[in-house]
C-alpha cells in the first residue's frame, strides 16, 4: 500500500488530457481509461502514485478504489512508492546479461551511490533492475524516463548518468557509435546495392 500523501488532483492541462482520453470510450466504459490516466498521474506526481491519486482516478472514472489498485499493482510500470523523479531501469534479461549488463548495473550503482531498488537521498534518481524491454539487438541497454540508452558498457553508462546528474540530457540511443540497430562495423549484406539516383 502506498504511503500517505494527503491530496492529489490533476493539473488543468492534465485534466483536459484525461478528459480527452475518457471521451474515447463509449458511455459506461470509462473504466477503460484507467491505465493512461494512471500514467498521467504518475508523471505529474514525481513518478509515483500515492493512495490519493488512485482514489482520485477511481472517483473520476466511477470505479471502486480497489479496482484501480488492482490495475496499479498488476503492472510494474506503476510505482506505488516514491521511485525517484528520474528512474533508471536496467535490463538484465538474458540477451543483455550475456552482453554485459552486470557491468552496467555496477556502473549505475557506483555513479548513483545506491543499490538496485533504492532511491537517492535527494529523491532525484531511482535504480531498478527490469525484465526485457525489447531492445535486445542493442544489448545491453537501460531505460531512463521515456528514453532508451543502448550499446552500453561501464564507461558509457557512467557518462550518461553523470551527465544526467549535472542536469544535461545526453542523447538517447546507441552509445557505441552505430546508428540505431545497423550491424556493428558496417553493413555485411547487400553491400553492392547502390542507392544512387538513376540518371
Amino acid at each position, binding site marked *: *500500500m502506498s504511503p500517505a500523501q494527503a491530496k492529489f488532483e490533476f493539473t488543468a492541462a492534465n485534466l483536459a488530457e484525461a478528459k480527452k482520453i475518457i471521451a474515447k470510450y463509449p458511455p459506461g466504459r470509462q473504466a477503460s481509461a484507467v491505465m493512461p490516466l494512471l500514467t498521467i498521474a504518475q508523471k505529474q506526481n514525481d513518478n509515483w502514485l500515492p493512495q490519493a491519486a488512485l482514489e482520485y482516478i477511481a472517483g473520476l472514472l466511477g470505479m*471502486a*478504489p*480497489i*479496482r484501480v*489498485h*488492482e490495475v496499479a*499493482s*498488476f503492472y510494474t510500470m506503476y510505482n506505488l512508492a516514491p521511485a525517484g523523479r528520474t528512474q533508471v531501469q536496467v535490463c538484465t534479461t538474458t540477451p543483455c546479461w550475456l552482453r554485459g549488463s552486470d557491468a552496467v548495473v555496477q556502473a549505475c550503482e557506483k555513479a548513483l551511490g545506491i543499490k538496485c531498488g533504492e532511491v537517492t537521498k535527494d529523491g532525484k534518481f531511482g535504480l531498478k533492475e527490469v525484465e526485457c524491454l525489447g531492445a535486445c539487438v542493442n544489448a545491453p541497454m537501460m531505460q531512463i524516463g521515456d528514453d532508451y540508452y543502448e550499446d552500453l558498457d561501464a564507461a558509457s553508462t557512467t557518462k550518461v548518468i553523470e551527465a544526467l546528474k549535472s542536469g544535461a540530457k545526453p542523447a538517447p540511443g546507441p552509445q557505441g557509435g552505430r546508428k540505431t540497430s545497423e550491424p556493428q562495423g558496417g553493413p555485411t549484406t547487400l553491400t553492392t546495392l547502390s542507392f544512387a539516383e538513376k540518371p
Partner: protein
Amino acid sequence: MPKLTIDGIPVEVEPGLTVLQACERAGIEIPRFCYHERLSIAGNCRMCLVEQEKAPKPIASCAMPVMEGMVIKTNTPMVQKARRGVMEFLLLNHPLDCPICDQGGECDLQDQAMAYGMDHGRYEENKRAVRDKYMGPLVKTIMTRCIHCTRCVRFATEVAGVEELGALGRGEHMEITTYLEKALASEVSANVIDLCPVGALTSKPYAFNARPWELRKTESVDVMDAVGSNVRVDTRGREVMRVLPRLNEDVNEEWISDKSRYACDGLRRQRLDRPYLHRDGKLVPVTWREALGAAAERLKAARPERIAAVAGDLCDAESMFALKGLMASLGVGNLECRQDGAKLPASSRADYLFNTTIAGIERADACLLVGTNPRWEAALVNTRLRKRHLMGGFKIAAIGPALNLTFPVEMLGDGPKALVEIAAGTHPFAQVLKDAKAPMLILGMGALARPDGAAIYALARKLGEGLKREGWNGFNVLHTAAARVGAMDLGFLPSGKLGDIGAVLDAASGGGLDVVYLLGADEIDMKRLGKSFVIYQGHHGDAGAHRADLILPGAAYTEKNGTYVNLEGRAQLAMLASAPPGEAREDWKIVRALSEAAGKTLPYDTLGALRQAMVKAHPSFAHIGGVEPASLAAFNGAAGAPGSGAFAYPIANFYMTDPISRASTTMAECTEAFLNGSAPLGADRGTGTHG
C-alpha cells in the same frame, strides 16, 4: 437446442449453457474451484478441463459455451492427466496444514485432491507464505492457503454489492485483500466463508471449535428477520456450534445474513433456565408447579378486560395459537403482536403479506420503497433487489431518509409528501409505476409504526391496488419480525377495547391492567407496564424478563419444533436441534400446562393435535413450505391525512435486533466494528506458517 455427446451420452440442452452445465445435466461430475453457478465465470482455476473432440488441447468446460454436435469426453487419460497436472500446480503453494485447518473435512481442495490428484507431489522448493489480511470480526483469513479462485471477490462485487475485495499483484505475488484492509462492510459478508473452496477464509467466531463430522445437522429456518431463510443448525451435544445456509431458491437462494449465521452464540448466554417469581422485592427461583400456580391464580383473579397478552417477534405459531386459545377461554380480548405499534390491518392476508414474493422481485420492472431500508430489515430481500437491478431495466425509487442499498436508488423525499403526490398521480414516478408491466411497492415498518401509520397505509394500499396486473400483485409489506405474519394469520390481534400496543401500555401505566402476559415480548417500553403483574414467558434475560414478576423459561428457535411464517406468508418448520437449557420447556407445552392449572385445559396434548387444531382454524398453515397467493381486495379502511414528519427506519443497529442477537458477543463485535467504526483490534499479521 444444441445436441451434444458427453461420454457417449447424447444430451440436448438450452443454448447459452456451458459445457460444464451440460455435463451436470448428463449427470457427470466435473471438478471445479472457481466456477460457481451464482457468480460470473472466471475460468482461472483450470480444474474443469475436459477433452473436446477435434480440439487440439483440453478445454475449460466452465467457460466454453455448448455448440451443436460437440463431442465431449470427461474420462479419458488426457483429461485425467490434465486434472492431475492442474491439481499439482494448485497444491504447489498450498500448505500441508490440513490437521490444523478449520476447513478440514469439508474442503473442496482436500476432496478433489483425493479424487483427481496425484498420490505424491514433485515440488521441492520453498512454498510461498502470504501475510493474513484483516476482513472484520467474522471472516478469518489464512491467506497462505488461498488458491486465487476469486469467488470471494466476485461475491463481494456482484451479490453483496460492496466492491471492497480485490486481487492485488500478479502471478506468484497475487494476494486477495480488502481495500486498505478494512472490514468487509456487508450484511451478507460471511457467505464468502461458504464460497471459499479451501481454508483461506474461515469463520472467525467458530475457529477451532469443532470438526464437521462431530456435528449433528438439523434443517431448520432462521428467525433473525422475517425472511425465514432456510438454515442448517449444527449442534454438538446441547450446544449450537454454527448455523449455515440451506438452499431454497424461493427464499434465500444459498445465502444467509451475517446475523442469521452468527447470532447463535447468543443462545448460550443470558438464558432463562428455571422459573422465577418476584417475592419480597427480588426474583427467586421456584418450581414449575409454584410458578404455574402463581400465574393461574393471577389470571383467574383478574377480570378478563384487565388482562392483556403480547406476543413477541420470535414466537412460533404453535405457542401463539395455544396462548390465544387460553386467553379466549378466559374471555380475554386484549391480544397484540404488533409490538412496534405498526398500523397493520388484517382483514385479509394480502393486507400484510409480501405479495410479490421474494423470487417474484426478479420479474418486477419498477419498485417504490416506502419507509424501509431493506438492507438492514431483510438483507436477503435486498440482495434480490440488487440481483434484479443487475439484470437491467429496473427503476427503483425510495421515500425515506438517505439510503445506501448497494445499488442506485432515486430518493423522492424523506416524508409522506412524495407518497401523497404519487398516490394522487401528480408525481413523475406515478407514471413510471403506471407504465410498468410488473410494478411493486414495498411498504416498511418505518412508514407504519408511527401515529399517522393508518393514513399512510391507506394511501400506499390505494396505490398498491393500482399495481395489480394479470397474475401479478405488486403490494408488499416488509416485516421485520419473524413471528409477525404468523401472529397476524392466527389473529393474535385485539378484539377487546385496547386497540393497539399503545392502548395496552397506556392502560397498564394507568393502572387499568392487572396481568400482562408477555410471550417473548421484549421490544415494548417496559417502564409503561405500571403496577400490573407481568408474566414473561421467553428464553432470554432481556427487557421483558427484567421487568417480569413471574418468569416462565421457554425455548429458543433451535430448541423447539415450531412453525414460522415468513413475510411472504410461507409457513416453514423450525426443527428441534438441541434441548432447551435446564428446566426450560417448549413454549406451547408451558401454555398447555398453564391452561390446566387455570382450570381451562386446552383440548390438545401433543404437538400433532395442536397443529391439527391450528390448521383447522387457520387453513393457511396447512401448506408448509409454499405460498398461497392472497388476493388484494378493495381497501375500505379509514383514510386520513398523513403527517409531514420524515420516516424513521425501524432498525438502528442491524446486528442487534432481538434478545438472541443482543446476547451474542459476535454481534457485539460487529456493532463495534461496523457501526462504531472502531479500528481493528490487533489486525492479523501471521502467515499461517509463521510458527
